[in-house]
């Protein structure tokens, strides 16, 4: 059988990225998009050349947090990710689909992922943050198959209902020998015990708690204000302590 040509350039562009951090959970609605986007803002603000890639093709939404409405890619022997801020390069299918619905079966998610990854021209990045979709389907399976040495930052909330689904993902990651950076407890009101226990159960790092921040919704779209929220402050501490970029 003839090879899939796209995989060659995919590998080449990914090789320009020093660190790949994939924000995953298995579960939906725990804050993967929020955390990945704010994390990319924090890293770029600290002077790291940062990429942010939205892989939730059914419901892309990083752009809403960044406040990007009109957005076009430059073409230059491929597609240049969009400069969303100083040091921050962003890629999403959003400019292609706008507010249309995106019904894609797994096989199509898989092809869209491969095609997109193979035409994106990332700069030499210190770090690429990936916003993963929920579930354990084609995007996750192809991501781990094709993207070299990602580190996984797992997100959970302090709910038994959420924990059981996140637990499945962690088991999968550990049995597959993937690199888990650690777990973040998100939308914490007072108690983060269930997430701490989960970290202990699998001997993975508990990276910290991000408070439920009522103010966050009000600053959606305003990068400067977002960096001033309690949510961003908590993530900054996590970056400080645990995200060492070579």
């Amino acid at each position, binding site marked *: 059988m003839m090879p899939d040509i796209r995989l060659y350039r995919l590998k080449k562009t990914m090789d320009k990225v020093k660190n790949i951090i994939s924000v995953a959970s298995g579960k939906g609605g725990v804050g993967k998009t929020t955390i990945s986007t704010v994390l990319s803002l924090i890293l770029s603000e600290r002077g790291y050349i940062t990429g942010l890639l939205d892989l939730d093709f059914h419901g892309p939404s990083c752009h809403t947090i960044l406040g990007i409405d009109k957005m076009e890619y430059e073409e*230059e022997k491929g597609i240049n990710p969009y400069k969303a801020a100083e040091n921050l390069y962003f890629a999403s299918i959003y400019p292609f689909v706008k507010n249309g619905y995106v019904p894609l079966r797994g096989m199509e998610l898989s092809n869209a992922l491969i095609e997109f990854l193979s035409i994106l021209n990332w700069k030499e990045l210190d770090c690429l943050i990936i916003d993963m979709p929920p579930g354990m389907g084609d995007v996750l399976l192809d991501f781990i198959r094709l993207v070299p040495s990602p580190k996984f930052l797992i997100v959970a909330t302090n709910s038994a209902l959420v924990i059981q689904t996140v637990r499945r993902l962690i088991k999968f990651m550990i049995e597959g020998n993937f690199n888990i950076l650690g777990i973040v407890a998100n939308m914490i009101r007072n108690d983060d015990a269930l997430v701490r226990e989960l970290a202990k159960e699998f001997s993975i790092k508990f990276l910290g708690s991000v408070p439920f921040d009522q103010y966050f919704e009000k600053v959606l779209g305003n990068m400067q204000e977002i960096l001033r929220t309690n949510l961003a402050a908590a993530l900054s501490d996590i970056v400080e302590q645990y995200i060492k970029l070579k």
Partner: protein
Amino acid sequence: MHEWALAESIIMAVVDLAKRENAKEILEVELLVGELQTLNIEVLEFALNELKRGTMAENAKIKFSKQFPRFKCIACGNVWEIRNLENILSRDEIESIHFIPELSHVFIKCPRCGSNDFQVTEGRGIILKGVVLKK
């Protein structure tokens, strides 16, 4: 102009294939170009000819054949072909599909039942159809 990105992929793929087969040279590369992606074949050809220089494909003849996109509706079974995307889609829509052919599911519906739930059975994008090597 992401035809350059695709051309780069093609050259890397055929060179890798030739190396794995311990070939001396690549004599011919045969490409099947699905028209759903509305690639500019002249640009693609130009890019391939630039990029092949200094590689094992330096003297390779590059052959193209084209294929209209064909669809099969999963909801109703209808099968259809599109010969002119311009007749049914806007420039922006064609451009989106150009980059990611799967986004055809956002813009195209089955002409019989209106569903977006179809398969692209032919003519999706570039396929490496054959490579002739000199061993």
